[in-house]
């Protein structure tokens, strides 16, 4: 179940962007992927999304090779939020979100699809922007509309299909309140709706606060993976990010607080 990466190697121009990575993203868990710039996080996500074909290794979605899935059935189980979505055509925010329903409605969205798109906009706190034009929105607003789009794509319908949501830096453009909103939504999507959610993040404290599992990458390799307690330690993080990192307990509830010294 979920998404499984088996011994993935991705080579481009004689460089190993991803080097022998095996991972399993289980349903019901929010997995956070972290690492320095160029560590191979986005490449790994693109392999997981089927966007890049790995040089070696295989990607399994629900126990079936990813590339053998029919594209329509796959889109109902796997949604991907790219790092940024550039579009110069004047779609409204609502139309962008409704695009996520394409595979559920064969081109003609019905009332249910519209309700789902509206609900996804409300969930990401962008309902007031529904009739604004997407290219005229601010970066953070666009990011939230895009998140609403991938939520709409996997929105729960009657059938209980397993679902996987891949988010590449979903909070990079967001203000602090919406960073927390986005990760609450992502975690809820995993815990309450049983989806496997994977998010690339840069903020150690957001990871510590929301992740069920953490994957740390360095130079294309897996540096560590496991629970927050196992992975977000001073020694592992300092090695992974090549900078001294301190961990203290939060004065209120004792959860880890991490910062560079």
């Amino acid at each position: 179940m979920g998404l499984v990466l088996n011994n993935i190697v991705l080579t481009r121009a004689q460089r190993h962007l991803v080097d022998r990575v095996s991972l399993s993203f289980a349903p019901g868990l929010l997995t956070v992927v972290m690492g320095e710039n160029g560590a191979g996080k986005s490449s790994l996500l693109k392999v997981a999304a089927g966007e890049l074909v790995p040089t070696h290794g295989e990607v399994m979605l629900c126990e079936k090779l990813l590339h053998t899935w029919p594209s329509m059935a796959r889109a109902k189980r796997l949604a991907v939020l790219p790092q940024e979505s550039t579009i110069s055509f004047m779609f409204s925010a609502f139309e962008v979100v409704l695009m996520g329903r394409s595979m559920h409605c064969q081109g003609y969205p019905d009332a249910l699809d519209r309700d789902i798109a509206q609900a996804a906009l409300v969930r990401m706190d962008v309902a007031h922007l529904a009739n604004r034009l997407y290219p005229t929105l601010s970066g953070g607003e666009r990011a939230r509309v895009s998140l609403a789009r991938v939520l709409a794509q996997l929105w729960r319908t009657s059938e209980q299909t397993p679902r996987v949501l891949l988010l590449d830096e979903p909070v990079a453009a967001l203000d602090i309140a919406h960073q927390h909103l986005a990760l609450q939504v992502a975690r809820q999507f995993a815990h309450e709706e049983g989806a496997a959610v994977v998010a690339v993040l840069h903020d150690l404290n957001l990871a510590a606060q929301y992740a069920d599992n953490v994957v740390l990458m360095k130079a294309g390799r897996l540096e560590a993976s496991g629970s927050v307690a196992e992975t977000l330690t001073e020694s592992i993080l300092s090695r992974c990010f090549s900078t001294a990192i301190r961990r203290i307990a939060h004065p209120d509830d004792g959860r880890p607080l991490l910062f560079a010294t």
Partner: protein
Amino acid sequence: MNAVVSRKISTLLQWKSVVEGRLNLKFAFFILISFVVVVFLLGICNGAYPLSVEQVIVGCLRIINIRIASDLLSEGQYAVLSSIRVPRVLLGFVIGAALAVAGTALQSLFRNPLADPGLIGVSAGAAVAVAAVIVLGATTLKGLTTLLGVMTLPVAGFAGGLITTTIIYLLAQNQARTSMMTMLLAGIAVNALAGASIGLFTLIANDEQLRNITFWTFGSLGNATWLMLAVIVLPMAISVAMLYRASMGLNALMFGEAEAAHLGFAVQRLKLTVIVNAALLAGFAVSVSGMIGFVALVAPHIARLLIGPDVRFLIPASALLGGGLLVMADIIARTLLAPAEVPIGVITAFIGAPFFLALLYTQRRSVMGL
């Protein structure tokens, strides 16, 4: 009862869409269809031999075998109307609509509102193939022309358009996005190459072929016949229908290929659909009316301003607008220096090129960015 009437009136008055800056779809299509009807009437009325609106209506009904008030229209006037004016206006509409739909589809494929079969060289590629057939058709390519008959020039235009579209698409495409710079620069190169090839053909052409080629490079609807319409309408209608069926995919392509794939569209098939059908539309258009630029750029752009970029509505809207605009340009071409006729490509370039420059001006930041 009163409430129903007042609601009907209020929906009629709601000409603005809920989306900022757009027109209500019904209102927009009402305007577009009215525009087409008006230019049709103008196009049939105007010319060296002016006809009144009543005569046009009577004559058009007679074409479809409904005879009323026959005394209004002399046989000579009917002949002008049925064998010159009507086919010419219809051809103008079909060509304009086909070019506009080809432009709409290419703009989705290239993710770029500046993609135009004329600018990126698709029409030029088609024109070279057509010129080659005109010049070599009686000699080297004799077998081909006898095999294909009246379809020879359209098929040649299609083949030329298909080859150039594919080349430019492969050049302009890199991993995630297609580069606007590469696309336009490749268009310049292809246009130059096509110009040179056509120049070579003019050298070896005889007088009649030369006149034909000149006619093709500037574009004209002057040779319109019912036969010509009959040859191109069905394949063009099929292409438009195939592009229309793919409109959800064309919407998704505007978000990028990777995202269209994540949304569940079969992207490779989609791209093939666009390339083949856009090349057919542009190639067939070039083969009967020559190179008519900018319609494919202007019509979808205005249509997008009116109703937004959703291809499901954009295809019919830009077809109506492109067809109507080309009929209008043809009226100008016929009347501006009457009795002489200005090539219609000259008219569309005079209107379209400043439009394109204005578009570049408003988008110059994103142009530089790519």
